[in-house]
């Protein structure tokens, strides 16, 4: 029983990071109907931004500490938001009115560019991510081990989900985002600056990816330029599983993938954990093609 609860805790911690990556994926898709395949690489850049920012922060604030970690997190999110803006401006905006497939392929190109450029610029050898959070320790409750980093991840994911919902549902920019999602041309006619809204969406998505990258690196402190590929893929799957475009769906999808994977690895076969986790995805999509929380959409003819 204790082992089962421990596996559940492990799965929850892994799942909430996937959920955080999936939130960014699903938000960009929800607004632009465009899968940003470079999202996993922005996740990687976020971790690297944290890696390079931490020594600077350490001069002003004590590290490891909560305040220091939050500053590193915020700066990394800012750096990636700017990178996201640049990618949108130079890679995606010129293709805005081209067929959707063109943009999709460009996204794959951007992804490969960031991975290989990263290997060239940042070095391919894995780097040790600095210690950002103090080891407040592990809590042992009746044989169950839970560490503070895992709690921070779960907490931050929950906060980001709520903040994102607030932005999309309750702010002026959020309303503009929903308007663009509904019909970009009509939104432009109503005076919405679509370029600005789309740029903002990308910046927000990239910042989310960066936050996930830093949290991932805090938990798994070995970072390299290819670290974003697998989490990016799994988060994409999580987003589809939860119903792409739906924020709580992405979080739910992330948790399901994380927990399934951990349980399969713990009890059935660690060799086939990915295979079984993806089989679960296929089964769920067979039953609910638009994802768990996704709305059924009819294409307008």
């Amino acid at each position, binding site marked *: 029983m204790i082992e089962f609860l421990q596996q559940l805790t492990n799965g929850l911690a*892994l799942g909430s990071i996937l959920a955080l990556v999936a939130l960014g994926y699903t938000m960009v898709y929800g607004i632009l109907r465009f899968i940003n395949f470079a999202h996993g690489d922005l996740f990687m850049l976020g971790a690297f931004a944290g890696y390079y920012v931490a020594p600077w922060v350490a001069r002003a604030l004590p590290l490891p500490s909560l305040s220091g970690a939050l500053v590193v997190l915020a700066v990394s999110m800012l750096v990636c938001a700017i990178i996201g803006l640049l990618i949108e401006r130079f890679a995606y905006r010129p293709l805005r009115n081209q067929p959707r497939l063109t943009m999709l392929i460009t996204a794959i190109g951007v992804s490969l560019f960031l991975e290989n450029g990263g290997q060239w610029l940042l070095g*391919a050898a894995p*780097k*040790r991510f600095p210690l950002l959070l103090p080891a407040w320790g592990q809590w042992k409750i009746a044989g169950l*081990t839970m560490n503070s980093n895992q709690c921070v991840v779960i907490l931050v994911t929950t906060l980001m989900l709520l903040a994102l919902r607030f932005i999309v549902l309750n702010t002026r920019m959020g309303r503009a985002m929903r308007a663009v999602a509904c019909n970009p041309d009509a939104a432009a006619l109503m005076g919405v600056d679509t370029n600005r809204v789309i740029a903002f969406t990308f910046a927000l998505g990239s910042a989310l990816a960066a936050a996930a990258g830093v949290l991932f690196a805090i938990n798994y402190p070995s970072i390299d330029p290819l670290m974003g590929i697998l989490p990016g893929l799994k988060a994409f799957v999580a987003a589809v599983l939860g119903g792409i475009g739906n924020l709580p769906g992405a979080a739910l999808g992330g948790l399901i993938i994380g927990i399934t994977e951990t349980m399969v690895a713990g009890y059935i076969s660690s060799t086939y954990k990915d295979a079984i986790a993806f089989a679960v995805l296929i089964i769920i999509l067979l039953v609910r093609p638009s994802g768990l929380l996704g709305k059924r959409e009819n294409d307008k003819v």
Partner: protein
Amino acid sequence: MKSNFFLTVVWLVAAVPVLLTGCSPSSSSPSTSQDSPTIKIGEFASLTGSEATFGQSSHQGTQLAVDAINAAGGVLGKPLELITEDDLSQAGQPAVAVRKLIASDSVVAVLGEVASSRSLEAAPICQEYKVPMISPASTNPRVTQVGDYIFRVCFIDPFQGTVMADFALNTLHLKSVAVLSDVRSDYSLGLARFFKERFVSAGGRIVADENYSGGDKDFSAQLTSIKAANPDGVFVPGYYTEVGLIALQSRQLGLSVPMFGGDGWESSSLVPIGGQALEGDYFSTHFSPDDSSPMVQSFVKAYTQRYGQIPDAMAALGYDSAFLLADAIKRAGGAEGSKLRDALAATTNFPGVTGSITMDSHRDASKPAVILTISGGHFKYVKTIAP
């Protein structure tokens, strides 16, 4: 417009075979190296990617040896020319690299790789073109079984597995052990298998047998299962990137028994990743820079002077592979494929910095293993175990 496009397509379709056949005679006839002013040696290594320190170390060792040979007048009056290709630590790349080295650079022999999976990919190509290949550090037995042109200068995993099983049982006094291996790596699976066979036949018990995939970052599920099995120690025959994270996560989960593994741990990146969690763990490898023999010490000095770091086992094996090749070319009296192969196969008591190298009938080197421990963030010599 349409007919123009159609004509272009027809022209292209017609032209491609012509161009290809036009090129083929020059590329298919291997230029003999007799008339070239240098002896070209190919090397493929993981200079970047997940096992980057392996490739960088072995390349630096190889380069140091090639430069030393050339400074002493080269081989048979000609300097060696080392042509190095990066395989990015990725499956699929070694084949590309080795085909390029053989077909377009016309190398006389190929040196590489450290990871067994990637050596296994390149070996059939070298065998097919009858270009001798020497792997510095691939320990999986299947590598040299590919064919009679494939050699290695290191020991093999049946020996390494035996060494670590005996060490766990007799020196560490571990009765029950859990094994955590990488399903994507021929090296890891092979070493795990030989370790288990020996450990069980010598009276130990394997209480958990778990897997991961190279590139994974989260091992908490497997480690939780291992912890529930309550072993005395954990054998992790993986590569350093994952080993560091596995050590960290096992300590976080409260699994505090000693961990031990093979030469895949040997990297300057191991301790920066695993840190404190690795203290008191053990691994087997090929070489210790603490060895007091004058040959080893002069190698360590030359390497440290040039690269500003102490050589590890991969660097020492890269160094030995290049010197062995030069020696074989000398003994063969030329770099012609079949003669060079025979000379390599006839190697006996070749003095290397990783020990004396004698090729057995399977073209594997029979050599002692060294066991190191991690203490105070450094690798410390424990003992040498002869075959």
